[in-house]
């Protein structure tokens, strides 16, 4: 836990004189049965940054998120988040350190009310005995979140009874309740109507600044609406990086992405 880390010692060398990155992956590799899902991936995310990560199927987007959240251990390379070595953490650690992860398929607690879903997500003691004797009553914070995700009138409904889009929003609300430093969002626009998609892009843009937001997406129109720096993954490594216009003009990108 106290492993020496160059990132948490500001000013220790000229190359680290500036503010350290929030998330830094360096030369990360991971293979499954010989298939290199991640192959020398190097990527940094700054605090408060909004970043879109795109790439064809099998580019390693999901594995990358699994590695960042401690679900999968890399075979090699380093992963630093906010001064912590993420290769030695599990999912619960990553959440406690400030990484919120949204799944592609909305995943909420279906048999709990909307209110309880948020209650369970708020920053609080996560230990068994802490929750067993919990006396906290964060009604005010829950009301704020309900307003933000526009579910005030569904407060006492079971999450199972929400529409697909509402579940996506509830899940985003649950992530915000954790007040994470980094939000990992996996294809948030999947299965959404155009209007919901636009609203989601707007929400994610507004969240950046307070939180770093990394969006993994297929839908180019949605990425355009995000209006941020784009990273293209291909075969487990970064192929191109920059504004969407530059990236989409890149010949290699066009080749792998459109299969030409």
């Amino acid at each position, binding site marked *: 836990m106290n492993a020496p880390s160059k990132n948490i010692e500001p000013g220790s060398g000229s190359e680290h004189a500036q503010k350290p990155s929030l998330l830094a992956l360096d030369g990360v590799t991971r293979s499954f049965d010989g298939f290199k899902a991640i192959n020398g991936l190097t990527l940094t995310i700054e605090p408060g940054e909004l970043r879109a990560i795109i790439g064809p199927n099998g580019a390693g987007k999901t594995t990358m998120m699994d590695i960042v*959240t401690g679900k999968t251990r890399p075979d090699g390379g380093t992963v630093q988040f906010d001064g912590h070595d993420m290769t030695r953490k*599990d*999912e*619960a650690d*990553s*959440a*406690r350190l400030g990484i*919120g*992860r949204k*799944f592609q398929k909305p*995943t*909420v*607690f*279906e*048999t*709990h*009310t909307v*209110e*309880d879903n948020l*209650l*369970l*997500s708020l920053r609080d003691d*996560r*230990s*068994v*005995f802490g*929750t*067993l*004797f*919990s006396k*906290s*009553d*964060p*009604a*005010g914070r*829950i*009301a704020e979140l309900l307003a933000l995700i526009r579910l005030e009138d569904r*407060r*006492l*409904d*079971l999450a199972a009874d929400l529409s697909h889009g509402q579940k996506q929003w509830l899940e985003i609300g*649950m992530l915000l309740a*954790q007040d994470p430093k980094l939000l990992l969002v996996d294809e948030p626009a999947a299965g959404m109507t155009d209007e919901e998609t636009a609203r989601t892009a707007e929400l994610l843009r507004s969240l950046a600044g307070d939180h770093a937001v990394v969006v993994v997406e297929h839908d180019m129109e949605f990425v355009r609406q995000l209006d941020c720096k784009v990273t293209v993954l291909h075969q487990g490594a970064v192929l191109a990086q920059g504004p969407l216009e530059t990236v989409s003009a890149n010949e290699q990108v066009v080749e792998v992405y459109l299969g030409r």
Partner: protein
Amino acid sequence: MTQALVKRPLLNTRGIIFLCVLAAVAFGVPYLNGAGALPDYAVSLIGKYLCFALLAIALDLLWGYCGILSLGHGAFFALGGYAMGMHLMREIGDRGVYANPDLPDFMVFLNWQELPWFWWGFDMFWFAALMALFVPGLLAFVFGWFAFRSRVTGVYLSIITQAMTYALMLAFFRNEMGFGGNNGLTDFKDVLGFDLQSQDTRIGLMMLSALAVAIGFLICRAVVVSKAGKVIVSVRDAESRARFLGYRVEGYKLFVFVLSGMLAGLAGALYTPQVGIINPGEFSPANSIEIVIWVAIGGRGTLIGAAIGAILIAAAKTVLTGLYPEAWLFVLGGIFVFVTIFMPRGVLGVWDSMVDEMWRLRGMNPRERRLKA
């Protein structure tokens, strides 16, 4: 003004009714027995059903709320039963067939010269009572520690719990294990100076069992209505979401597993003196499956339903095995299939749907009503 959060009370109307029924049984049965309306054997029989009810509540906490289907819960029950049985054996003292003041009869028969170390301390009641909770708790802890940390879930976990109880059964069948082998432990004389053959002692044990059911229910209910209870249900419904919210899922599963194992052990400890014998048959996989059937029939995730299911099925078993011994397993299997297909939420679930329908007919939202329950 923000709306207050909904909090579920420790005791809802249904819980109060349940505790009242338990009290009525605890005091009504001895009264009826004294008045001659109830035969003597019925008192111990009811005591036995109450032990099953506690066992079912313990399994329901684990299966109904945490989603862990244990097909080996009979093992914890039997271990509690053996712990109490060992004390009762030591209590026999020199009144056994071989009149050895230290060694139980079966050890004399096997030509053992001294008491094995794992029998030490069982001459003291408090020690045996503690072990009846501690040993099942320890087994649950060790088993759960490895299983949950390795993220064994679902059917795989169920199968290894079944293997666990089967392995214990085979082990306890062996004479060398030092637990009486095939015959188990029996011929008990008294407990804490009370003659186990006397009707007063039997009534006392039945009342204690009712008290244990009440306490077990209240403990489980307290867990269920707490925030930890909400986390436990979350683990059942969306384990990975719970992990990515920062909950250490293994810890919650282990807590529920150990608590459930200890309550099962308590049920076993009360069961042994009332039936007068504990043998390796209690570890048999079929017994553990029967517990699961009780809970499924009563209604998973209700605690009270589990107790109702256990008592209904145990009573039906008593009646039917008396009348048509060959038919029982077919009837049990038939009931299980019927309930699984037509009443997936069990007896209590059917009752709930009926009540909800009634409220709906009166133009009220049944769910809002139930939130506070």
